[in-house]
């Protein structure tokens, strides 16, 4: 079964280190206000041979080493479609999301897994709503996002199944970095789409539910539901929405409020990326 085109090593019998002396970092608590999002660093043009590219780093929690999120995105095209492709009067978008093997706590393989496919599909719908695809007839564009570093540094992340919540943040990052890379590539868009995440968090026994923006799963006892939106702020349109989890039955909060908080988070992200995009063009030309 092993792929002969890679160096496979001794096979599946290796185990990641198991630590028996607990975590060095004590239990973490959210320091930010519930409606504050983390600062981010954005740089365009990191891959000069691509039509457009961007690097996004979401800063780690304050006082913590590591555990930010680091993503790169390259955009190739618009370029001619493969000969086998049928005629298309508009631009054909394809998206790829890939975790580097060192991006998460568990080493990931090179084969595309289901979470990467999920992310690619969500990213595709998110971007398609923003592109003005009919300006580029019979052409294709490839958007490739590589996750260099995901979140959740702690050992018990896997046990507590926080990874499934982290994927929301990863999608939000993918949308934002891809949006910047597409802008860098000079492909027409109706708006700068940006990702935002909100979650309904609660204490361990499910009490005291409240909504926070840009949640870091490790900082909360439990997450009941989370929502990631791709949002066009100037048009007030949502191009992609991903909702996960269950809301408690006596609806202390409904779906709508969670979505609107996610939109609020993405407005915040939009503000940050528009500032750094404007700075990028301002600095290269003056």
């Amino acid at each position, binding site marked *: 079964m092993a792929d002969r085109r890679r160096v496979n090593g001794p096979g599946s019998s290796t185990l990641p*280190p198991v630590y*028996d002396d607990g975590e060095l970092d004590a239990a973490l608590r959210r320091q930010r206000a519930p409606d504050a999002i983390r600062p981010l660093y954005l740089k365009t043009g990191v891959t000069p*041979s*691509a039509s457009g590219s961007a690097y996004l780093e979401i800063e780690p929690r304050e006082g913590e080493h590591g555990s930010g999120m680091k993503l790169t995105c390259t955009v190739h095209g618009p370029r001619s479609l493969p000969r086998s492709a049928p005629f298309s009067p508009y631009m054909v978008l394809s998206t790829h999301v890939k975790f580097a093997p060192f991006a998460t706590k568990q080493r990931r393989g090179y084969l595309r897994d289901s979470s990467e496919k999920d992310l690619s599909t969500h990213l595709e719908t998110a971007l398609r709503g923003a592109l003005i695809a009919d300006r580029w007839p019979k052409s294709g564009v490839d958007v490739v996002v590589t996750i260099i570093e995901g979140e959740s540094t702690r050992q018990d992340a896997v046990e507590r199944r926080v990874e499934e919540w982290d994927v929301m943040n990863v999608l939000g990052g993918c949308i934002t970095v891809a949006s910047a890379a597409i802008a860098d590539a000079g492909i027409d868009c109706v708006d700068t789409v940006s990702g935002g995440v909100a979650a309904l968090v609660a204490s361990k026994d499910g009490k005291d539910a409240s909504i926070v923006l840009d949640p870091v799963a490790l900082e909360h006892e439990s997450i009941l539901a989370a929502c990631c939106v791709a949002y066009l702020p100037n048009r007030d349109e949502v191009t992609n929405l991903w909702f996960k989890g269950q809301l408690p039955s006596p609806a202390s909060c409904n779906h709508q409020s969670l979505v609107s908080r996610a939109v609020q988070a993405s407005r915040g992200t939009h503000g940050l990326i528009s500032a750094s995009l404007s700075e990028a063009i301002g600095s290269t030309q003056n």
Partner: protein
Amino acid sequence: MAPEVGLSRSTFAKLSPHPYLLANLEPSDDSIPPARSNGRAPFEVRKPTVNLSSLSHAHGSALVRTGDTTVICGIRAETILTDHIPNYRASNTQTELADYDLLVPNIELATGSAPQFLPGGPPTTLAQTLSTKIYTLLHSSKLLRAEDLRIWHNRPAEASFADEEEGAQESEEKEGEKYVVAYWVLYIDLFFISFDGNPFDAAWAATVAALRDTKLPQARYDPDREMILCSRKNPKPLAVESMPISCTAVIFTGKETKDQPADGKFWLLADPDTLEESLCDETVTIVIDCTGGSRKILSISKHGGTVMTAKLLTSKEFLDWASKRWEDFASAITGSQ
């Protein structure tokens, strides 16, 4: 070249890159110094920069940038019990690294690092070749000591401590003996963020830098659970004393087709970019280590073409260039530690 008159420089470069490079290297006007299409002098390299420990999930990592080629290397260590190694022999203390496949380098180009490297397919031939070259050089350079990857265990000295099932094994070996119970396996994953020629030099430098940055946790064997347990305290760095550095150049002959007789004229273009690699058939790579002031050559390889003779490969000029390149990389790697 009458028909070219009236074409802009960028058009000329696109339509006929070969004559364009030749024209740059052989300027008609003596006042213009010869240069490559990218503006560098023939022997001029792109200065490397290195960042270490930028990844928090890896045991060691490095980001190496030379010009527009950027590669990130993450090293992750996992353990394997010797019981699980099919061909394990306790007497083998010389070739463990290679025999048990403890070093696992892989190169990924398909991140859109260049327009020709898009995800979706199997690794390209270039990616496979590079992975194999890194693998070979890791072993042949003896960069790592096997001792660093061994996890020892003390068999209980007294028979009273040993339970029955272990007793059977112990009859073969002496009691109280220290033996290797497991090995660390190093997964060395190299991701190209941006690709503009000369991938091997950058990938190899990233590998060396990341290995020097790698710290393995303290590990011990728990006989009851039959597994390796690690401690977060005092991780131990790998002992990487040598610093082999790869230096690559391509040979440009000025002739577009191979069947033309080379008129003896050629240029050695150090640290080629993608365009130059596509215009040249002959590549030479020398791996040297100048640690401690003495120059050691670990490997010289060249493929294609017939220009580089043994005499040229060992000429002072060539070796001095390689030494200079070694200094660039070595200071970039150690300077960032």
